[in-house]
């Protein structure tokens, strides 16, 4: 990974590719790369869909190697949804393939001269950019079928659906999975719209004839990788819970805790949760000949995903994960897994963020556009988005815009981005992260739970109010660092529980990169990323005043615990005060 591919989409005669040495960005991967580049090269005041914004796609530091779980890809830009910096990441095959082709990043920059759509093909021999108007307004599934006809089924793709082409704020970027289906999405923040604004429909990656990236110290790397895999397998969450039930195993638990935001965040419990729980989902998948344990890319040991078939046993979508099942399910009062799976399929096809879409539909259900629980209406609303009707354009702009358009006060967003599936009134520490994350309301910012091992920020009583702020800060720091390694965040449990497994991860990085990283260095990396992101956001106009939850979380109490969000603004302002 010693080169960067820059595509100037505004060049005379159509987009021009330029390959440059990695230079000042050497040693960066994933979020460190995307946020570093956006910080250095994108004017914070620029229009997110304009000439000066850049879309950066970067594999993790360990991607393309034999390291297990190293296949996350990061996508960064100035977000059209939040107006701040964005890093959205996804699984699937592209990270591995792109890294094997030697690219540390692909950067799309400039402004197209006309409305021609393009595709980019990258293999070991170079880069070819060709017109692709025949792909205009194709959904991701149809698009990938066409790519298969032309390039076979061994390539990996990064693409946008209709929503990205229409530059919708809720649009995602799709990555193909092991079966070459467009099911893994860099979903958050409207990154698909930025790719759409650059008129690139799809990047096709072919690693034929390339080799796996080799470690600097193969012996140590092999030993550390083995220890790493053993650690993941022996941990009850990463070795048993996630493979058996996927992330949707959380439905029953969050519901029991009274932190499951149902009916557009009006209550913390959903009556129909058993029908859409991970346990039920897995029973359905098995009964219909689908798969309950499956990886989203080669080299995944945990395998939290699966295959969801329809009633006739035909493939419908990948196993809808917790966030999706909640967003389109309980949040909209829908307890029909088949309908939720269909909504997941449509989101993947049109290229939409499932969290943003589910939250948006919840908001407009509250406005009376459809009844809570009406699955048919929810499906029709997503089709409106795909068609780009005037209503669809509003819905495809996300919950904040739809809330304004329909005059709804209860709109669960921070910095314009919809909240995920944990009500911040029940789990207030997560609310701290929602409020202060550089990304807008985000659950993955704060997913890395290894802070206790890393002792980021020293030892603070986690039960004190100060402790909650410090914990959230530490979580955000470690998450930023893990996002840079390109490691799936679900490894977090094994590294939290088992210090030796965390050490194995560090050893593996060091053996691969020829470095001597310590836990402190990882912490520093996380801090430096967050600092850049914060600075970018400030210059873009997102100050601490935007580090707040919507007012109603402080006023409306949530059942069953009858509690409001109680963390004070001045405490929120301390999160980045390190």
């Amino acid at each position, binding site marked *: 990974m010693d080169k960067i591919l820059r595509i100037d989409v505004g060049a005379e005669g159509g987009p021009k590719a330029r390959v440059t040495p990695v230079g000042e960005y050497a040693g960066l991967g994933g979020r460190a790369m995307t946020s570093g580049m956006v910080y250095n090269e994108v004017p914070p005041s620029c229009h997110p869909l304009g000439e000066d914004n850049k879309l950066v796609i970067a594999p993790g530091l360990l991607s393309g190697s034999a390291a297990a779980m190293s296949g996350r890809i990061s996508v960064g830009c100035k977000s059209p949804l939040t107006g701040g910096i964005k890093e959205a990441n996804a699984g699937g095959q592209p990270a591995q393939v792109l890294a094997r082709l030697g690219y540390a990043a692909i950067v799309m920059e400039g402004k197209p001269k006309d409305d021609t759509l393009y595709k980019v093909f990258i293999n070991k021999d170079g880069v070819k950019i060709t017109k692709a108007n025949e792909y205009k307004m194709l959904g991701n599934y149809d698009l990938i079928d066409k790519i298969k006809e032309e390039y076979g089924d061994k390539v990996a793709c990064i693409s946008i659906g209709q929503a990205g082409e229409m530059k919708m704020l809720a649009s995602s970027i799709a990555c193909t999975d092991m079966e070459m289906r467009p099911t893994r999405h860099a979903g958050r923040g409207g990154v698909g719209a930025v790719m759409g604004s650059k008129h690139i429909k799809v990047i096709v990656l072919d690693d034929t004839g390339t080799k796996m990236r080799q470690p600097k110290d193969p012996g140590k790397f092999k030993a550390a990788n083995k220890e790493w895999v053993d650690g993941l397998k022996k941990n009850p969450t990463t070795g048993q819970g996630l493979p058996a039930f996927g992330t949707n195993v959380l439905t029953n638990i969050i519901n029991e805790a009274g932190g499951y935001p149902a009916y557009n965040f009006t209550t913390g419990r959903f009556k129909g949760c058993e029908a859409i729980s991970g346990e*039920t989902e897995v029973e359905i998948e098995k009964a219909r000949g689908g798969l309950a344990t499956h990886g989203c890319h080669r080299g995944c040991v945990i395998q939290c995903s699966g295959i969801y078939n329809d009633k006739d046993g035909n493939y419908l979508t990948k196993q809808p994960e917790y966030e999706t099942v909640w967003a389109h399910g309980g949040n909209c009062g829908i307890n029909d897994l088949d309908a939720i799976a269909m909504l997941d399929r449509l989101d993947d096809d049109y290229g939409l963020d499932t969290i943003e879409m589910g939250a948006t539909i919840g908001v407009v259900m509250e406005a009376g556009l459809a009844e809570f629980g009406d699955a048919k209406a929810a499906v029709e609303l997503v089709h409106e988005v795909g068609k780009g009707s005037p209503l669809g354009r509003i819905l495809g702009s996300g919950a904040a815009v739809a809330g304004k358009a329909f005059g709804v006060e209860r709109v669960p967003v921070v910095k314009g981005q919809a909240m995920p599936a944990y009500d911040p009134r*029940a789990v207030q520490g997560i609310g701290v992260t929602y409020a202060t994350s550089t990304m807008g309301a985000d659950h993955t910012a704060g997913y890395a739970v290894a802070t206790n091992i890393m002792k980021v920020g020293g030892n603070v009583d*986690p039960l004190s109010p100060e402790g909650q702020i410090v914990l959230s800060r530490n979580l955000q720091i470690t998450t930023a660092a893990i996002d840079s390694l390109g490691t799936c965040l679900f490894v977090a449990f094994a590294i939290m529980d088992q210090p030796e497994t965390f050490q194995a991860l560090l050893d593996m990085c060091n053996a691969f990169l020829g470095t001597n990283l310590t836990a402190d260095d990882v912490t520093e990396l996380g801090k430096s990323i967050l600092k850049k992101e914060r600075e970018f956001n400030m210059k873009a106009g997102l100050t601490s005043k935007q580090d707040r939850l919507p007012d109603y979380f402080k006023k409306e109490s949530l059942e069953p615990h009858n509690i409001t969000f109680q963390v004070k603004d001045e405490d929120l302002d301390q999160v980045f005060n390190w």
Partner: protein
Amino acid sequence: MFMGVLRKGVRVEGHVGLSIGGFLREEIGMDAEYIESRIQTIFLNGRPVDDVEAAVIGDGDALALSASMPGLAGATLRKGGHFAGLRSTISYREEGSAKRSGKGVVTIKLFNLIAKELAPLFFERGFIMDGEDFSGVLHSHHETLSAGLRSVEIDGQAEDMEKLEITDWDPKEVFLRVRMNESSVGHRRGNV
């Protein structure tokens, strides 16, 4: 086939006024090591519990048991975890409540891996469930039950599968016990 019922919650009778740990060990028959290491997430009346030996269980309480869960939320809800502070406002606190000791009924919900692992123990011990849920299982799993059931007893009387299916269970509570080679069912609340 009864997993959905176990997740929804079944009721068990036993001696209450004990700590959760004491109740699970002495009344349900769980292994201390299993409670300590495997049951990582526990809710008492919807509140995450950190100390199973301090929290007292009373008549009418609802207890939910789960393995450790993924993600930050999972880490947060774990008993006594490093991240327990993130949900301190909903955590269970034992405030020397006046939970009397004596006989009582406790609803127990078993989730995820725990449901699978503890189902045999609960079947063996027996539990109370809503008649409506019982009929639901009988109808949706007719074939599996017909093939697997060796003998049926209702209120101490030997009966056949047909009787099991034609009985109107809906308005009743059912006490169900399943043994390796036989099963028994008892009506409750005035129907015994």
